[in-house]
């Protein structure tokens, strides 16, 4: 589903990703852990076709990026820690706007469906400006799944959420996984990652330093596994 081969990204003369290899098959939920500045967000932005790789090969559902980024964009849904919503529009208007940008078929039905799914149907006419952080994040997820993507990319989706919103987000993520989407999520929260993901990759110093399937590791051992992986890439 996602194939990344020898991906490099430099900012000016500063290398951020140094020949990264990564794979995720259909229906897999991969959590990418790593210290700050390891290149998690950069990697996700490249997968989302928001940033161009310096070199390397990337394919999503068989389509190469950035050559066929247009096709790939209609297949992916992206959630970042920024809402990507317009405060002066209502929830419904925001979804209608993005629906038109994605040329979603039967838009009115789909918008209703998504609003009910994320539990905002009753407040669909309120301006997004008046929403709490948790509600905004729900709508953000609604925006990301509006065009029925097959690959979901989450960049630190838990940042700044209160306890209720975390529980809600967990539920939505479980639904997304159950419906067979491929999910890549970056996080620095180890416990969340191990709870949801089917595979855990450690990104450190621009490389995937280690990778483990969830059934092969317990919650307690994950911390030492993570520390060791990070330490190995830091001579």
């Amino acid at each position, binding site marked *: 589903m996602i194939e990344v081969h020898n991906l490099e990204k430099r*900012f*000016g*003369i*500063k290398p951020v990703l140094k020949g990264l290899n990564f794979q995720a098959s259909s229906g897999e939920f991969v959590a990418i852990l790593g210290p700050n500045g390891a290149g998690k967000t950069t990697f996700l932005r490249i997968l989302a076709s928001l940033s161009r790789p310096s070199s390397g090969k990337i394919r999503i559902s068989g389509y190469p990026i950035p050559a066929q980024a247009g096709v790939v964009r209609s297949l992916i849904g992206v959630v970042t820690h920024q809402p990507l919503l317009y405060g002066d529009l209502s929830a419904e208007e925001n979804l209608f706007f993005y629906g038109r940008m994605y040329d979603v078929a039967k838009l009115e039905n789909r918008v209703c469906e998504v609003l009910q799914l994320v539990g905002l149907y009753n407040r669909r006419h309120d301006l997004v400006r008046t929403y709490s952080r948790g509600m905004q994040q729900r709508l953000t997820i609604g925006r990301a799944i509006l065009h029925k993507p097959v690959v979901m990319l989450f960049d630190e989706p838990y940042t700044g959420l209160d306890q209720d919103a975390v529980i809600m987000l967990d539920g939505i993520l479980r639904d997304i996984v159950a419906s067979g989407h491929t999910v890549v999520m970056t996080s620095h929260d180890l416990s969340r990652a191990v709870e949801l993901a089917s595979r855990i990759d450690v990104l450190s110093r621009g490389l995937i330093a280690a990778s483990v399937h969830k059934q092969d590791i317990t919650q307690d051992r994950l911390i030492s596994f993570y520390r060791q992986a990070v330490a190995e890439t830091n001579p």
Partner: protein
Amino acid sequence: MESTPRWLKVLDYITATMFIAAILMVFFYAPTEAVMGAVQRVFYFHVASGWVGMLGFLTTAVAGVVYLKTSCRIWDIVGLAAVEIGIVFVFITIVTGSIWARPVWNTWWTWDPRLTTAAFMELIYAAYIMLRQGIDDPDRRARFGAVYAIIGFVSVPFTFMSARMFRTIHPVVVGINQPGSLGGFDMTPRMLQTFLFSLLMFTFVFADLLWRRIRLGLLADKAAQMKMKRNE
């Protein structure tokens, strides 16, 4: 530390020799102009530095196009180098022009199309430098710089044309003289030779400065890279 390439040293010497020769030609070879007198000698370096200024800005626009096509860092360094040279030489053109204009036009400055265009060019490339200073990410800095260099350069002929449709008093020495311009003159063969040699000499100055400034940019990159390695 790398030593200076041999050809760059050769270019330094040729340029310096030509510079001295050109000064001698301007003061001793070219005859004194009958109407304006000695101040007319400013003309040779005035036009030549204007030429280098335009060459600099043209280089930046071309380097901008190539950078956007290739994303190769060297073209960003070339673009910045050429802008810096261009700004300095257009400034020299304005200063030498004012020295000439004071006795001939009886004013330091007029809103003639060439003067107006020169002033706006300086502002465009000052904005180019400020734009670059406002961006931390080196790739974005290079991309935005390239886009602005292209837009700025394309706007220059428009500025010139619209300023020209106001009446002009600037002499057109090369080509046909317009009626109403003040301070025009016909060049004698010796004047023409001095003029062409000055143009050639300034082109060498441009090449030499550009090479040195690009080298400086590359060395700065290398220094930054070494610093980064040491911090790791």
